[in-house]
């Protein structure tokens, strides 16, 4: 019963989405207020219907109702409660439903929050676009991958969930990532609506900014959680391996980061209007490509769980429709957009333009590297691989250049400035950086590592200098800073911390692997890992082979970790649980390998010593947190248009880290 009502809710939501697309567009075109206002109600209704449908599917999983095919294939009565819930989105149909649910919630949120701050015509047009995206993907869900499909006869028990996916990381990673991906649909809808209106200006940028901030923060969080998850669940010692599925989540992040900064420029300087519109369209298009790649198996990847070309074709058609229409509209309407063009190199605006150029270039490079094997094969039939060595070599220099400018730009005035004004700050920074380079060289014995650490230190020094300059070292002024300022500082410091972590990891990480007997040891970076006796047993829904690994250094005990090889009979699958000893210094871990059953020669054991890896995630979490911090500011200060006061608008501008020159 529940399944049927869920399906009805989806069908109804599909109809509502169609009306939400058509009526407000006509209304906005003819100036009919009633038709435009319909967009709000439709968006709210669509949100409610999808919440119901998603709730119904969750209930089906919780009740282990195996008459519904999806639950039968992806769930099991013996599964822990948390994984019954996360099982809802650990499969193609459920994750698409989650995707659409988030899309509808964003639509409803625009209707709700924008009801007295956004002009009616812009709002209704944006919601119409949002409705069109919803209708496209709802149609895709209903006609090609219905989550509520029944099964007859009803199986006695479900087939379980891929054990690799039974992890708290999974409960978190996809929803966070999807909120990020789908949140950019708002930027897309606003861009299309603005093109229809023929107006892209600072006011538009201010409306858009909180939505981009929300999406960006969630995407950052989602990618970070995914990285942590892959790190400890897969247990290869890699926090980022440039896998295609990782890359396609990184692409909207790069474009989104560029968008976040170009909006800032548009808001402050009324420049980059064309650029911002194109970025808004591209960012969401890259999100759709992300969905498409994971669904279609176009690229071979460790993470793709719903490999099915036909679904890929439908998503490609949707991408073609939405992005194609948006870009065609841009081509037709771009001549109506006006923007300032008096750009000067040494200014905050110049820095932000540089930021955008580098981020977009990086996006192109990651895109190219990810899809290049596909293109080569398409044209020549030759098979090649583009792996981590390529990305490291090409991407890292880009980021280094970006970091160098990132330290300086926030210090500068918005318009014409001179570097000579900042001699004292540079002097102090250079001293600090020199110290840092010397120190890292002594510790790491690596010239390049030391220089990379120097660049990170340069960024941190520059950011601190911006804080000091803004406040003149006065505690009262420091406390009076708006949240957006703290957002900026935290995000940029986060990038510095992140870079330090990556550098330490690149220079210092070591690993070792061998087949050993219980009682034998394996060393790495001066740490000795001794494998204790192996124990067998069974727990919840798997059997395990477990070993304690004692770690010593110079004869002294450091820590002890437990590693497991697990066998899930329901899926006939073996996985490895690495034993971790995370640390702010050197993180140690050991894993007995999967795929290799123990033989008379013992088990395959891998041991790792990775300095600084934790700081990579701390830095990334700082960036995500920074987004939310800025948001607090934005929400408080978004004025209603009729009350808007130019002076206030200016002081609320988060980017005014340094008082504008004008």
């Amino acid at each position, binding site marked *: 019963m529940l399944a049927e009502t869920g399906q009805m809710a989806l069908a109804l939501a599909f109809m509502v989405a169609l009306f939400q697309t058509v009526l407000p567009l006509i209304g906005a075109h003819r100036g009919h207020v009633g038709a435009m206002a319909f967009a709000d109600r439709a968006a709210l209704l669509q949100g409610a219907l999808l919440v119901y449908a998603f709730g119904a599917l969750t209930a089906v999983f919780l009740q282990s109702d195996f008459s519904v095919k999806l639950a039968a294939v992806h769930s099991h009565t013996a599964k822990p409660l948390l994984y019954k819930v996360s099982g809802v989105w650990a499969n193609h149909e459920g994750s698409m439903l989650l995707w659409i649910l988030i899309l509808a919630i964003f639509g409803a949120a625009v209707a709700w929050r924008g009801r007295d701050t956004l002009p009616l015509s812009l709002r209704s047009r944006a919601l119409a676009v949002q409705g069109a995206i919803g209708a496209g993907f709802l149609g895709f869900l209903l006609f090609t991958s219905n989550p509520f499909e029944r099964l007859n006869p009803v199986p006695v028990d479900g087939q379980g969930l891929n054990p690799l996916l039974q992890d708290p990381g999974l409960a978190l990673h996809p929803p966070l990532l999807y909120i990020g991906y789908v949140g950019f649909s708002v930027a897309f809808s606003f861009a299309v609506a603005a093109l229809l209106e023929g107006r892209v200006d600072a006011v538009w940028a201010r409306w858009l900014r909180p939505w981009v901030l929300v999406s960006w923060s969630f995407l950052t969080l989602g990618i970070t959680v995914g990285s942590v998850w892959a790190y400890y669940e897969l247990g*290869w010692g*890699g926090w980022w*391996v*440039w*896998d*295609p599925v990782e890359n396609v989540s990184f692409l909207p992040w790069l474009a989104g980061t560029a968008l976040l900064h170009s909006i800032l420029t548009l808001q402050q300087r009324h420049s980059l209007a064309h650029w911002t519109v194109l970025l808004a369209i591209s960012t969401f298009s890259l999100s759709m490509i992300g969905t498409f790649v994971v669904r279609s198996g176009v690229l*071979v*990847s*460790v993470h793709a769980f719903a490999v099915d070309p036909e679904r890929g074709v439908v998503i490609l058609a949707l991408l073609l429709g939405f992005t194609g229409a948006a870009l065609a509209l841009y081509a037709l309407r771009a001549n109506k957009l006006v923007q300032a063009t008096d750009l*000067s*190199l*040494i200014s905050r605006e110049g820095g932000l333009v*540089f930021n955008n*150029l*580098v981020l977009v*270039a990086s996006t*192109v*490079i990651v895109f*190219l*590297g990810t899809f*290049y094997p596909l*293109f*080569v094969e398409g044209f020549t039939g*030759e*098979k*090649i*691989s*583009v*792996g*981590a*060595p*390529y990305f*490291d*070599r*090409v*991407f*890292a*220099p*880009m980021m*280094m*250049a970006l970091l*160098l400018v990132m330290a300086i730009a926030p210090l500068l005035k918005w318009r014409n400035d001179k*570097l000579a004004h900042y001699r004292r700050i540079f002097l102090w920074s250079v001293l600090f950086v020199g110290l840092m380079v010397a120190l890292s060289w002594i510790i790491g014995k690596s010239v*390049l*590592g030391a*220089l*990379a650490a120097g*660049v990170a230190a340069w960024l941190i020094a520059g950011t601190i200098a911006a804080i000091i300059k803004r406040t003149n070292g006065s505690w009262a002024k420091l406390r009076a800073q708006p949240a957006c300022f703290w957002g900026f500082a935290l995000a940029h410091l986060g990038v510095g911390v992140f870079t330090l972590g*990556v*550098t330490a990891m*690149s*220079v210092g*990480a070591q690993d070792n*692997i061998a087949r050993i007997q219980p009682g034998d040891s394996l060393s790495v970076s001066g740490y000795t890992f001794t494998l204790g006796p192996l124990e067998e047993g069974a727990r919840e829904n798997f059997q395990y082979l477990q070993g304690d690994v004692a770690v010593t250094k110079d004869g002294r005990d450091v820590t002890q970790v437990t590693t497991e090889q697990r066998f899930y009979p329901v899926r006939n699958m073996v996985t*490895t649980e690495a034993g971790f000893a995370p640390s702010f210094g050197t993180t140690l871990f050991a894993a007995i*390998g*999967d*795929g*290799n059953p123990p033989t008379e020669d013992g088990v*395959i054991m891998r041991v790792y010593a990775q300095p600084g890896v934790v700081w990579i995630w701390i830095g990334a979490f700082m960036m995500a947190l920074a987004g939310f911090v800025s948001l607090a500011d934005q929400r408080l200060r978004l004025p209603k248009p009729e009350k808007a006061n130019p002076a206030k608008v200016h002081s609320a501008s988060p980017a005014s880290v340094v008082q504008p020159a004008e």
Partner: protein
Amino acid sequence: MIRLLLSLFFALAFCLGSATYSVAQTAETAPNASSADVEQTARAVGKQLRCVVCQNQSIEESDAELAADMRRIVRERLREGATEDEVIAMMRDRYGDYVLLNPPVQANTAVLWGTPLLLVLGVGWFIWTLARRRERTAELSSLTEDEQAALAKMKRDLT
């Protein structure tokens, strides 16, 4: 000044980035190389070879049996005195370009390697024109002492 600064940090960024991530210190492997040297080189080699039965893992990262065998063969060859490049070439000979995680520069990777270069040149050109434009406007707006003197002299000569 600005241009010097810019070119300086581009140069810095480039040599930095190109090796920031590479852990490997390439060791020359003599026929009687110590096992620690072999191990270090083997790791560097292994990280550049794709585990052909896995998806996007290098043979150093993979638990697959074939990857373990490939690791062993890499070490054997190194111990026999093969260089890093020779071992990689040998694997490429068997499994094709597919086994190389670092795509070689050749006809079918021209776009792959060329695009980043073009992008960097493009960004560099943009910055250069911007800097030049600004200098020129600066020249137009304010004349140097010499120029003012020359201007005064011209005026005097005219009268």
